[in-house]
């Protein structure tokens, strides 16, 4: 990995969140929240499913351009979270600001283009059906996770909608 793609140093505020500040001074929070309540049909894996979100701390000035080190940092955080080969992560692209599509493309690309830890991660994307349309959702699970097939099955069951 090139030096320019080194992840930012991040702080872990146990047991809540991760945070890092970019070269340009923008502060980001990353956090995982338990999603077990949505996978009750799968009691074996439910406690091991988490959602992931990344959020820019409130600022008046919004960052411009692409900072590839943010991607490297997110991959590092999520990669380490999955390296235990126990957990799986679901990322739902927030549609509230109308940027869900862009968010999905960016997040998906992060785990496709880089060749470090993320190569060990299986990424599956699908749509979640809502009353107002469909949303992008991504499942991330370690390739060596013994319950990988169950996570994938549960994820597709969620995205299948009501039948």
């Amino acid at each position, binding site marked *: 990995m090139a030096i320019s793609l080194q992840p930012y140093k991040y702080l872990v505020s146990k047991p809540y969140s991760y945070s890092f500040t970019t070269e340009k001074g923008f502060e980001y929070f990353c956090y995982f929240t338990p999603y077990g309540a949505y996978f009750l049909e799968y009691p074996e894996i439910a406690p091991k499913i988490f959602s992931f979100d990344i959020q820019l701390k409130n600022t008046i000035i919004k960052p411009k351009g692409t900072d590839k080190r943010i991607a490297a940092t997110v991959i590092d955080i999520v990669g380490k979270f999955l390296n235990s080969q126990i957990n799986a992560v679901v990322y739902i692209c*927030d549609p509230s600001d109308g940027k869900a599509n862009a968010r999905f493309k960016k997040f998906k690309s992060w785990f496709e283009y880089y060749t470090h830890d993320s190569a060990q991660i299986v990424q599956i994307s699908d749509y979640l059906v809502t009353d107002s349309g469909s*949303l992008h959702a991504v499942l991330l699970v370690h390739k060596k996770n013994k319950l990988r097939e169950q996570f994938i099955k549960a994820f597709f069951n969620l995205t299948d909608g009501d039948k």
Partner: protein
Amino acid sequence: MKQLCILFYFVLIFVDCIKQFDMETAIKSPKKSTSKKVVKAVPMTKAEMVQKMLYDQKFIRDAIQSGITFKELTEKYGYKFATI
């Protein structure tokens, strides 16, 4: 006086019998529970689940933007977070 004593004796026996009867009744038919009926939670549909996921996601994002800490989100609002 003697008659009064006999009467008092019978009253005592009568009271004792009533007590005994009450005990048996209490043992044989325990009081009915006054607690409310347990209503089974109806499982959410998938569409409702997704709505809740989005609601929670937005709530947490808005809370963080408005300066609420993760600790407060946990202690006041019951959200949970995880790190390694």
